[in-house]
Structures are given as structure tokens and as C-alpha cells.
């Protein structure tokens, strides 16, 4: 009973007038039902928003609640949080690349069909995904909806010996990740350059994943995390349950293309070298190339996980106390599909007064819609079935969260 998508296109005299992407995922009301819950509960509850990126929800929630309570989590606990998040990036990117996106480029309906001709390639993808899940399972306790994350840190921290065994599993995954970049860089990419503004979390010290000190944009100065809602405003359009966000009133994009373009100078030498091999350049504004950026970020995340394991000292205790206080807190992190913002108002009684969650899907929706308008305009000569297939691919450039529905995009073209 999952969400579905539909695209309604109106064409007049051979020109696309409107392209409305409808997402009719039934409303789940998270922001409403969080009110009155204990301030330590949002990491567990909001994880359930997504089965592919639960760590992102847990991390942005922890960042926001710790901010509201005036606590900064640093040192070994923060490094363990980054390691857990690397696990999610590896697992989610491998899933997106191999199981959802690559079959599009190679003309297969799904990964099972791809495996009948290229079993070794699919096995490489599964090995990579499993390595990411191994991090999630060890540090988080479970690959989907980890149970070990709490406000202030972790319920328990893994010992050195268990991480050493994890490192053994990650070393072959690094080779698989490098091979993935070479593989996807050889795909055939349609020409497309989008002019949307780009938005990503920024950390002056390293490629932003689990937190950052500011939000960086392509056409304006950085702004502070707590100024997020001064710039990003969600609007409600009649044709979709998912809200549309605007950046100072304009369309914008968050996710791999934004992270790469805004923060690529902070990638590792290995990841930067692979980006150069793949001819990505200083900017990447072709959404079809998001699969290449995901592959490069996977290399970075595996390397970063190995580095974090090598330098790991188990935090003792495994969390810092975060006493409740009256306040409002803001938290961001880079979910695999883009910036994820949480804001909580907390009372001195330790109960959540208000909750705001701005997921990447809502932020990207206007840009995806614009992208679909261009794709349809340029391909009006195709029949509706071929056009629907192209639109599904276009959506999968961004998001499997929408592509839950977009393997069966209900396309209607009204030609007047």
C-alpha cells in the first residue's frame, strides 16, 4: 500500500504548458504526532519516515535536540556517529546505483534481469551494500531503523576488536567501490544541464556528512543552520501530498550534485582522482550523472569508514547527558539524497512542543517537476509508453523514495 506517483502533462500546439508531478503518498502526520512525546523520542520515531535512510533522520533529530538543550557532542562519540552515517551512505548509494538506477542505463527492467546477464557485477553491488549494512548492524544494532542511537550518543559503543573485523570486510568493499566508479562512468548519459540553485550542508573541516556548521548555496553567501527556515519555505500545491520547498522563493536542488559541486574540494585524493577520471569537472549539473557522484561518494565513505575505524577509541561513557531545557533547536545532516533539516521546540517538562522536518524529497520536488517538463518537451515525438519510461528514469536520478512509485508512473498526456 505504498505511495504512488502520477505525472499529468498538458500540451498545447506542440508546446508543454504544464507538467504536474503528483505524489499521493498518504499523509502520515509525523510533525503532528511528535508533539507531546518525550524529547528523547524523535530519533526512534522519525527513523520510521524512511527505510532506506533512517540514520539520516536519527542524526538530524539528535543534532536538533542537542542544539535545543545547549549540548555539543564531539570527540569519539561524534566520530562514531560519522562512521554509522558512512554505513548508511555506502548501503543506500549501493542500493540506488545497483538495484534501482543502473538497470535503467543498461536497458533492464530490474536488478534480477541484470543479474541473469551480469551476475558478477550484481554480486559486486551486493557485496558493497552488505559492507555498508555491516557497519549499520555493528554500530547501530540493525541495518534498518538502528536501535543503538540516542540523544547524546549511543546506548553502547562497540569494542576495538569488533571494529577490526569490520575493517577486514571493508577493504574488499573499497576495491568494489572503485570498480563501481569505472563501471558507471562508462554509461551513456543524455545531455542535460540544469540551472537550479544548489544547497548542501558545509563543514569547513571535512566533506559534510553527519553535521556541519553552515548551509552552503551556489548563488549566495552561506547561512547559519538556525537560519534555515528564513531561506527555505515549504509551500503546498494542490496536486501533491508532498510539500514543495523554495530557496528564497526559487527552485533549488539538494543531494549528490549539490554536495559535489559545493564541497568537492574536500573529497579525498582517491575520490578526487576518480572524479577526474570520470571527467566530472568543477561542477556537475547533469542529473543523469548523479549515479557517478554516488559512486564517488561511496569510495569516499568506505575510505572514511576505514580511517574512522583505524583512529577509533571507544567513547567512555558512550553518550553525554543531555538534560532537557526550554528551547528551540535546529539540526541538519546530509542524507544520501540531500540535506535533511529538523527543528524542535522543547518545553522545560521535557516534552516536544513543536516539530518541523524538511526532507530532501520536498526540497527537490519543484526541480524534479521542472526537469520532467524539459524532458517531456524535448521528447514529445515519443509514444506515451516510451515517454513514461523516460520520465521514470528522470525521477530515479534523484530519488528512490519517489521511485517507490515511479516504476509505474501513471502518465497522462493531454494534447490540445
Amino acid at each position, binding site marked *: *500500500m*505504498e505511495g*504512488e506517483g502520477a505525472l499529468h502533462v498538458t500540451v498545447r500546439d506542440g508546446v508543454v504548458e504544464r507538467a504536474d508531478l503528483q505524489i499521493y503518498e*498518504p*499523509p*502520515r*502526520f*509525523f*510533525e*503532528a*504526532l511528535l*508533539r507531546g*512525546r*518525550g524529547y528523547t*523520542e524523535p530519533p*526512534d*520515531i522519525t527513523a*520510521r519516515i524512511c*527505510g532506506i535512510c533512517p540514520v539520516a533522520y536519527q542524526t538530524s533529530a539528535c543534532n536538533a535536540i542537542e542544539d535545543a538543550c545547549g549540548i555539543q557532542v564531539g570527540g569519539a562519540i561524534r566520530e562514531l556517529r560519522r562512521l554509522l552515517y558512512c554505513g548508511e551512505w555506502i548501503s543506500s548509494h549501493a*542500493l540506488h546505483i545497483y*538495484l*534501482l538506477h543502473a538497470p535503467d542505463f543498461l536497458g533492464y*527492467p*530490474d*536488478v*534480477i*534481469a541484470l*543479474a541473469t546477464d551480469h*551476475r558478477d557485477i*550484481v*554480486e559486486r553491488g*551486493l*557485496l558493497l*551494500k*552488505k559492507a555498508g*549494512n555491516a557497519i549499520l548492524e555493528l554500530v547501530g*544494532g*540493525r*541495518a*534498518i*531503523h538502528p*536501535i*543503538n542511537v540516542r540523544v547524546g550518543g549511543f*546506548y*553502547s559503543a562497540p569494542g576495538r576488536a569488533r571494529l577490526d573485523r569490520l575493517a577486514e570486510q571493508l577493504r574488499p568493499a573499497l576495491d568494489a567501490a572503485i570498480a563501481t566508479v569505472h563501471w558507471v562512468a562508462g554509461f551513456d548519459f543524455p545531455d542535460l544541464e540544469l540551472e537550479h540553485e544548489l544547497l548542501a550542508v558545509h563543514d569547513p573541516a571535512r566533506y559534510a556528512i553527519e553535521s556541519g556548521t553552515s548551509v552552503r548555496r551556489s548563488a549566495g553567501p552561506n547561512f547559519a543552520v538556525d537560519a534555515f527556515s528564513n531561506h527555505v519555505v*515549504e*509551500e*503546498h500545491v*494542490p496536486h501533491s*501530498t508532498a*510539500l514543495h520547498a523554495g530557496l528564497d522563493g526559487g527552485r533549488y536542488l539538494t543531494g549528490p550534485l549539490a554536495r559535489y559541486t559545493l564541497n568537492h574540494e574536500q573529497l579525498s585524493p582517491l575520490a578526487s582522482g576518480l572524479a577526474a577520471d570520470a571527467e566530472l569537472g568543477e561542477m556537475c549539473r547533469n542529473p543523469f550523472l548523479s549515479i557517478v557522484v554516488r559512486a564517488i561518494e561511496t569510495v569516499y565513505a568506505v575510505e572514511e569508514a576505514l580511517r574512522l575505524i583505524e583512529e577509533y577509541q571507544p567513547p567512555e561513557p558512550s553518550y553525554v547527558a543531555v538534560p532537557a531545557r526550554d528551547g528551540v533547536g535546529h539540526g541538519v545532516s546530509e542524507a544520501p539524497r540531500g540535506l535533511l533539516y529538523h527543528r524542535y521546540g522543547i518545553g522545560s517538562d521535557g516534552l516536544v512542543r513543536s516539530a518541523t522536518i524538511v526532507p530532501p524529497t520536498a526540497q527537490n520536488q519543484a526541480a524534479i517537476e521542472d526537469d520532467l517538463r524539459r524532458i517531456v518537451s524535448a521528447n514529445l515525438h515519443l509514444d506515451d509508453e516510451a515517454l513514461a*519510461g523516460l520520465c*521514470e528514469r528522470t525521477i530515479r536520478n534523484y530519488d*528512490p523514495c519517489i*521511485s*517507490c*512509485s*515511479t*516504476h*509505474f508512473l501513471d502518465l497522462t498526456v493531454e494534447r490540445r
Partner: protein
Amino acid sequence: MLDCEDELLALAGRVRIAHFLEASSAVQPGPYDVTLVEGSITTAADAERIRRIRAESRVLVAIGACATAGGIQALRNFGDVAEFASVVYARPDYIETLATSTAVADHVAIDFELRGCPIDRRQLLEVLTAFLAGRKPDLPDTSVCTECKRRGLTCVMVAEGTPCLGPVTQAGCGALCPAYRRGCFGCFGPMAKPNVAALIPRLREAGMSEGEVDRVFLTFNAATKGWSS
């Protein structure tokens, strides 16, 4: 299913996946031998659709806390859905939804259910393996405590005074939370005949306030019977 890295290709060799929109654009028409349904019923269209799916499926399995218990979004059942919509949406008039979020079994007959938020992938493989072998799936109906004892874990409630729902929660996760020195928070829902009345004083002794006791039962399986009183 996409998290079964070691088994996915072997499984794909034994079954034909006919309709899996997240992972495949090749959709086969019904009828189907086995249908796995996740998600709860929150719109009139969902209610209609699940009846169609039931009619087309020989075996219908509800998987996950949303499908088996209405999920976290069933908290609306205890509130006012119009008020919820006004908090989340600028234009609540654009939102069409039922006042409740309910389990699949509240609408159609189901053959099996896999509990949990999320389900345990070993249980999913057990149901599919049992189907292929023509036998009944072997799923536990005991409490998380039995899994905890089997793993040889120290009881977090007895040894550390940590509140834990293990004694009343259905087994299936492998006692994950106690292994991480955390109390069980019940994401697999109530076991058969849970003795909630006996547990509540222990939760209070362990330091949970009345509000916390209420909330821990009102989470991912809030609307299910067994904990409701």
C-alpha cells in the same frame, strides 16, 4: 527483501517477482501465489485496493508494524485527524485521508503476519521458504525474554534497572536492544497473552513516569489489541 544480500539472487532463482514497484518496472498481472503487503490503510483508495489485492492472491502476508498494527501513524486514531492535518499542511483542504490508520487484517483476511518495525529478514525468508516447501512457517509467539535468555544476555531490567518491554513483546528480533544495553521498546508488538498489568509496576520502579509508561506502549504498535488497556 532488498536487504537480503546473500539470498536475493538465490531467491530470485526460485520465485518470479511479479509486482515490486520500488525495484522493478516489469509488472505481471495477477493472480499471484504469494503477496507481501506493507503499509497501513489510511485512505479510502487503500481500503478498496487491499480488497482487490486479496481477491488476486492465494496467500496474503502482512509485513511490518504498519500492515500488522497501523504503524506509528495510527497515533491519529487517538487524536483529531483534522487538527493533525492543520498542523502539518498549509492547505489541509487538499488532504484526503481517513480518520484512522488500520492494519490490513482489519479490512481483509490475511494468511500470515510478520511483525516488527522493521521486520526481521530471517522471518521473511522463513515464510517464503516454507511456502516453497509446502509447509507452515515456523514463527515464534513467545516473548523477547526467551530470545534474550537463549543468547545468554544479562537482563537489563534486573541487573541495571533499565525499563524493558521484553516480557510482553513478541519475539522475532533476536533481542537486539538488550544486547546493546537498551530496554526493549516493543517494535514487534504484543506477544500472545501479554501480562501488561504485572509489568507496569516494574516499569515505574525502574523510574518511568506515568506519561512515559503510556507513551512507550503508544508507539509503533499503538493501535494493536493486547496492549491497548
